[in-house]
């Protein structure tokens, strides 16, 4: 991803570029939350509870007197970490399944695809809920589950691209020169599947962030007192929202903006790298 590419992105798809920048801002804020946050995430101070936004507390305080802004910043950190790790794992899983299934074809492919079909009939959230009910909550578990869930679903897209590449002349040519499968996979197939993979990763980040938020909202995500954006909108927080409506705004708004930004960025990326993917989920 050279400099020219990003320049082109800025010129031709400014909207997407801005999305990418906004996402980057959130990412940086999240990563440096320890430094930026004015207060700690658990600094309770009952004397200042339920205060509306002010200069002291830019986003107000919650029912325990904790600074919402600081919690939101840490929430960013959590969302980003989980989002990236899960999306990364998902991409790896998608690549492995998609490449193996697509390249080797035959009965193996058919079997795998049937499995993927079956996997995809289950709604994302339901699958997540069921698996979490078995393994319990926690960051590693969530990352792994999200990774595999979206990984299996995304393998379809990778496989499609691999199949296309497999059918091209130069793969046949490489095979006829006696190149080993491994070599062909790495030197021919993978570079051509790269654009798809890059776009896939970008879109998965948004999806995993939303999924984690949903789980947190239901109480099945990263366990308290971790201030994930999802959990800040649920649980005990909710009853106090009627008294302090600003509590309902910040986490949800952050989620929306971050996901919107990365989606728009992903769209622009896809348009530039591989317009044929338009319409894929």
């Amino acid at each position: 991803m050279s400099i020219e590419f990003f320049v082109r992105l800025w010129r031709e798809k400014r909207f997407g570029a801005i999305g990418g920048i906004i996402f980057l801002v959130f990412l940086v804020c999240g990563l440096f939350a320890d430094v930026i946050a004015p207060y700690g995430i658990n600094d309770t101070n009952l004397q200042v509870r339920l205060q509306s936004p002010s200069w002291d507390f830019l986003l107000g305080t919650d029912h325990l007197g904790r600074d919402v802004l600081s919690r939101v910043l840490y929430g960013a950190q959590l969302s980003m970490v989980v989002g990236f790790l899960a999306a990364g794992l998902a991409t790896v899983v998608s690549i492995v399944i998609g490449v193996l299934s697509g390249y080797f074809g035959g009965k193996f492919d058919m079997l795998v695809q049937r499995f993927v079909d079956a996997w995809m009939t289950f709604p994302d959230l339901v699958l997540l809920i069921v698996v979490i009910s078995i393994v319990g909550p926690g960051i590693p578990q969530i990352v792994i589950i999200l990774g595999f869930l979206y990984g299996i679903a995304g393998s379809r897209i990778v496989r499609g691209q691999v199949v296309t590449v497999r059918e091209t002349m130069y793969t046949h040519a490489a095979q006829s020169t006696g190149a080993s499968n491994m070599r062909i996979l790495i030197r021919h197939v993978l570079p051509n599947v790269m654009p798809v993979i890059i776009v896939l990763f970008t879109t998965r980040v948004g999806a995993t962030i939303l999924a984690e938020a949903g789980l947190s909202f239901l109480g099945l995500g990263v366990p308290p007192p971790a201030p994930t954006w999802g959990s800040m909108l649920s649980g005990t927080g909710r009853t106090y929202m009627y008294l302090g409506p600003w509590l309902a705004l910040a986490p949800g708004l952050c989620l929306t903006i971050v996901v919107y930004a990365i989606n728009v960025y992903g769209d622009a990326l896809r348009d530039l790298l591989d317009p044929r993917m338009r319409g894929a989920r």
Partner: protein
Amino acid sequence: MQAYIARRLIALVPTLLFASLIVFVSMRLIPGDVIDLMLAQNDIATTQDRERIEAALGLDQPVLTQYFNWADGVLKGDLGRSLWRNTPVTEDLLVTMPITFELGFLALIVALTVAIPTGIYSAMRQDTMGDYVSRSFSLIMLAVPSFWLGTLVMVFPSVWWRWSPPLEYTPFFEDPIANLSHMIIPAILLGLSMSAVTMRMTRTMMLEVLRQDYVRTARAKGLSENMMVLRHALRNGLIPVVTLIGLQAPLLIGGAVILEQIFVVPGMGQMLLEAVFQRDYPVISGIFLIVGIGVLLINLLVDLSYGFLDPKVRHQ
């Protein structure tokens, strides 16, 4: 046409098998200490009860037998008994399923009513302001978490206007008005988030169709834009959209879980969440299975309707 239906049904079988395997395996993965947890939660402490639970979960027999017993039970409509309430899962499901179904159905209507005309309009007026607005709107809807919208709808009207959405469920046949006024808000929210993807797909499909040669022929015959879209373009453009609706069915169910929670709709979603917190595994796996089968059925219906809509498929 019969052959087509038969082929679709046969293709269903392996997927069904795999799906049932997924459910079954998930059940078997319950770690031992979780059973201890269940015991602790359910206030039973004896080893007999532990054995009873294991037997209830079928964990005391060889794996293959377990699978066949379970599958056999499922085919007879037996999904086990709830560990918490000791009632048959099937019975409970029969109560909650229609409710979730109603929610989903209403949401689908909302989604289609919003998405399809918007998508068509966007395609016909590509790159105009109207197009950008609707595309931006759908992009936003894709990013907005449904639980946030639901929360906002609960909180802000109460703060501003002292009004709250109704949170009490009344069965439809008892009092349709009360029932609908309870369900309509979650249905709208669910429908809106569904409409985002549907609208984008409709737009893409219609753009594709509008580029086709037969559209040019229709214009050359003297048809007005609107009539041409209605008579020629729509039938072609909507075929893939029907498939998309089928693909959206899983999203509907997933979204329903969250919205049922917020708006206190006693459907399958609520049942699932309750079961998760109670570690009521028979219930969890029962719902899991039913959801899977439900989605497969919807996909089958969509596939079959394809044969109805697209003459090329019919004549294969």
